[in-house]
């Protein structure tokens, strides 16, 4: 069986005044990345800042458009000119570093809005399903709160529930715990580990070693837009082959 998410020769450049580029300089955020993620697999993408890991993740549901290369989710092309964006984004949910909960809506509305608008789920059913999802991430007592009334960890758990409400086949996590205080990281990682145990296909950009060892099937190390090395968490963290990987692992451990 072929992989669920297939990335082939992905190239993305940011010209000035793009991300961190000096005037006139062109940054190759992705420089020919090829990667497969199987159904039910949990892939952790690590690498120094500016290595292109977030860009790779954002290209998978086309929040970034590639310059060249191709990406598929299941049978659907992400990169085709007339790609069915709605379907792609239903298939691959996304969780952001800064949560991005809709600031003007209650937690319950945050979770139930997209099913109502995009899938035309009847309001009452969307509400019930949203409440069930929020219960699952331990927020059943916060349904009517606004996002800013919640702690960072609670907001991120609500954001995961929001992504789950579209019943995605894969979830993309873009540094989900980087904006959190240390005492809140665990509650989010616990939810993520739970999803991994249930067989969710996941691509996670994160440096959380605990999560890597508990839930990741594979670790991919990226640097300067390229995949330098990949393998099981144990092997990458304990006996990396490449010099650059060794340097990086030493810095984050």
């Amino acid at each position, binding site marked *: 069986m072929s992989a669920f998410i297939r990335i082939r020769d992905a190239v993305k450049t940011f010209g000035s005044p793009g991300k961190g580029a000096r005037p006139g300089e062109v940054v190759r955020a992705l420089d020919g990345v090829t990667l497969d993620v199987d159904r039910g697999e949990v892939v952790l993408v690590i690498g120094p800042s500016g290595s292109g890991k977030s860009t790779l993740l954002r290209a998978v549901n086309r929040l970034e458009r590639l310059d060249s290369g191709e990406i598929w989710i299941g049978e659907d092309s992400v990169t085709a000119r007339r790609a069915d964006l709605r379907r792609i984004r239903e298939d691959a949910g996304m969780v*952001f570093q800064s949560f*991005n909960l809709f600031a003007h809506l209650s937690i319950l509305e945050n979770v139930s809005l997209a099913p109502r608008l995009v899938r035309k789920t009847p309001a009452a059913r969307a509400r019930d399903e949203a409440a069930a999802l929020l219960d699952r991430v331990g927020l059943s007592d916060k349904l009517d709160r606004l996002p800013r009334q919640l702690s960072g960890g609670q907001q991120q758990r609500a954001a995961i529930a929001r992504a789950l409400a579209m019943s995605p086949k894969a979830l993309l996590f873009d540094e989900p715990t980087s904006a959190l205080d240390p005492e809140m990281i665990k509650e989010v990682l616990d939810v993520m580990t739970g999803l991994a145990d249930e067989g969710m296909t996941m691509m996670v950009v994160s440096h959380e070693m605990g999560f890597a060892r508990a839930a990741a099937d594979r670790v991919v190390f990226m640097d300067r837009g390229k995949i330098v090395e990949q393998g099981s968490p144990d092997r990458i963290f304990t006996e990396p082959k490449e010099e650059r990987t060794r340097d990086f692992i030493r810095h984050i451990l």
Partner: protein
Amino acid sequence: MKNKVAAALGGVPWWLVLLIGLGVISVGTALADASYRVIFGAVAKGFGVTMTVAVVSYAASLFLGLALGLARASRLRPLREASTFYIELVRGLPMLVILYYIAFVGAPALAGALNALMSPLIRLGAMEPFQSRSFSFATRAVLALTLGYAAFIAEIFRAGIESVDRGQVEAAYALGMSHSQATFRIVLPQAVRNVLPALANEFVAIIKDSALVSVLGVQDITQIGKVYAASTFKFFETYNVVAFFYLCLTVSLSMLVRALERRLGREARR
């Protein structure tokens, strides 16, 4: 003890105390002086016209301004360019010139355009041709204020749209929402909330600028005052009364805007 008094006195909004004092003195004088009572009665007849011109122009310019503001923040370049062209053009003209222009160039042109559009019906005799005088000066004044204020209000909406964090739109897209769903369900509600005080301030401004319609002979507070003063030579008393009417409206509305700002600020901090 001394410090406490100083602190209490420091917290008093003296500008408001002075304004209220001025209002009380004005009303007191008016009640004591028969000629003031007459002027009050005369100028009050323009109050309805001033408020109608202000409210109708404001409501219409909110709609037009929203459309222009959305176009200004649009992904489609032609929409963006057209809207920017309009906004820069109109903002570059004095409101008085816009008023003259719409009244004496726009209205005949509009009549001509409508006649061309309706020419078959007019030839059949089913309707009378439009003439410039089909549009009252009050209508032309409202149209001019609407077109002028729409440009300012469009810029407020654009600023509001741009103040919404980019992540909100990305989250909407990532959930499969379309561009218009993201705009109308996610961005606009937050944008409007952010610019509510600025929008309310435009209403205060349009009340003041509605005085410009007096140059077209529309019977608003200013026009009635102008005519009354010219015929009785009671300039001092008449313009006192005119100013009193405007200040009652603008100061009370400004205070409402302040209260609104405080409330929104408190909610944002909650």
